[in-house]
């Protein structure tokens, strides 16, 4: 340390007498030695002050006070800087953990879009943050029935994702594609009501498609009403249902309804992230989506989903504010 102080004094003295680039450069290289010796910023200032006192006789009193003040400030500054850095490190750890969690969620909630004969299905589900609070579950027994569940957990991020895993396992347990939609909702309601926090609710639209008779049977628990487009009449119908969200009360009974699909008819199932037009009161979101879908009905179901998503992204200036999920079933 003593040698370090002496050397610093020499370097500083040289610079004071001749302010050239070479002396500055030597000063910069000196930093390496300071770091090797673990010298803290406040010590550097102390070394500087000492050297200055030695080089310049009669250093004014106020300059010395000013250096003492700087030492004092630097001790505290170093302290706070370390705290800040450790916070940043923690944040980085969390980010990495979150990424792993999102990957696990993706694997866990992965679903394959069935491709049955005579029915065209498309889907898009984009999370707002890393973890998705929406979930689409398909089941196809490769025989007569095919089922689709579109789910939205009220809430976002990690809590919603955890709840979603449970919904997925609930759906997996009811493994038959021919189950009645109302029955599925009743079982899931029971499961969620029992095991999830009071503040956590799930909305779900569950539909079963009969591939032999082209009948879509659906049941909804507080979910955004699906849109049904009747091609022959060139008209839309809202598949309304006023039934309770999952997880609020035990023993809720759900009803189910049937519709028959004819050629070129389609059904749009979605989550409320799609119809969330928060900042655009001049729009009727459902009407807007109806028109959008109509304008691209010549495309296949997947292309329709992608197209609607793209158009809405543009409309919202690429700032969608919720998890976004659309499923289209097209006859």
């Amino acid at each position, binding site marked *: 340390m003593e040698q370090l102080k002496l050397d610093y004094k020499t370097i500083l003295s040289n610079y004071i007498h001749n302010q050239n680039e070479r002396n500055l450069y030597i000063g910069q290289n000196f930093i390496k030695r300071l770091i090797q010796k673990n010298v803290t910023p406040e*010590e550097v200032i102390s070394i500087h*002050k000492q050297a200055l006192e030695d080089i310049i006789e009669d250093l004014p009193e106020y300059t010395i006070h000013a250096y003492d003040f700087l030492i*004092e400030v630097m001790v*505290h500054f170093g*302290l706070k800087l*370390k*705290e800040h850095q450790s916070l940043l490190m923690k944040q980085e750890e969390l980010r990495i953990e979150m990424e792993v969690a999102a990957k696990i969620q993706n694997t866990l909630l992965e679903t394959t879009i069935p491709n049955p004969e005579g029915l065209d299905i498309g889907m898009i589900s984009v999370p707002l943050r890393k973890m998705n609070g929406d979930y689409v579950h398909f089941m196809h027994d490769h025989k007569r029935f095919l089922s689709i569940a579109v789910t939205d957990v009220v809430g976002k991020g990690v809590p919603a994702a955890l709840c979603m895993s449970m919904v997925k396992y609930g759906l997996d347990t009811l493994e038959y594609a021919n189950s009645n939609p109302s029955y599925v909702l009743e079982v899931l309601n029971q499961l969620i009501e029992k095991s999830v926090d009071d503040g956590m609710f799930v909305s779900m639209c569950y539909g079963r498609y009969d591939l032999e008779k082209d009948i879509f049977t659906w049941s909804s628990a507080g979910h955004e009403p699906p849109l049904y487009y009747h091609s022959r009449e060139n008209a839309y119908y809202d598949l309304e249902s006023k039934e309770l969200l999952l997880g609020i009360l035990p023993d809720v009974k759900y009803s189910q309804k049937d519709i028959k699909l004819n050629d070129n008819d389609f059904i749009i199932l979605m989550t409320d992230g799609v119809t969330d037009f928060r900042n655009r009161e001049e729009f009727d979101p459902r009407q807007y989506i109806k028109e959008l879908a109509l304008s691209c009905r010549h495309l296949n179901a997947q292309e329709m989903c992608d197209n609607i998503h793209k158009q809405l992204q543009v409309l919202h200036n690429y700032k969608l504010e919720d998890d976004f999920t659309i499923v289209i079933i097209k006859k």
Partner: protein
Amino acid sequence: MAEKVTVEIVTELDIVTARKLGRKQAKQIGFNKVDQARITTAIGELAKNIFQYACEGKIIIERINKEGKKGVSITSIDQGPGIADVQKALEDGESYGAGLSSVKRLVDSMHIFSEEGKGTTVKVEKWLR
């Protein structure tokens, strides 16, 4: 100056008093300006912890001697909520240990005795080199 001084920490002003007495003690023992600043900052952080988290407590500043070495010890005693997990408090500086992990860097040794619900005692030492 006496071998040992105690400052009760009740108001924010007491933090300044503790710092003042600590600096005086450090100076008399013979610590240089940088170490004086470190000791004072450590006292300030400990006193601030008492003031913010425990409401009431005290800081004891003592001269210490061991094997011919001189030093200062600072003990902070409070009857606050206590620290449930000392290791965690030191690791990430959360909850009570707001400044604890940084105080540790300013001194030579640190010991924490804490019981949840009863209070915390933190003792740090710094030796003259």
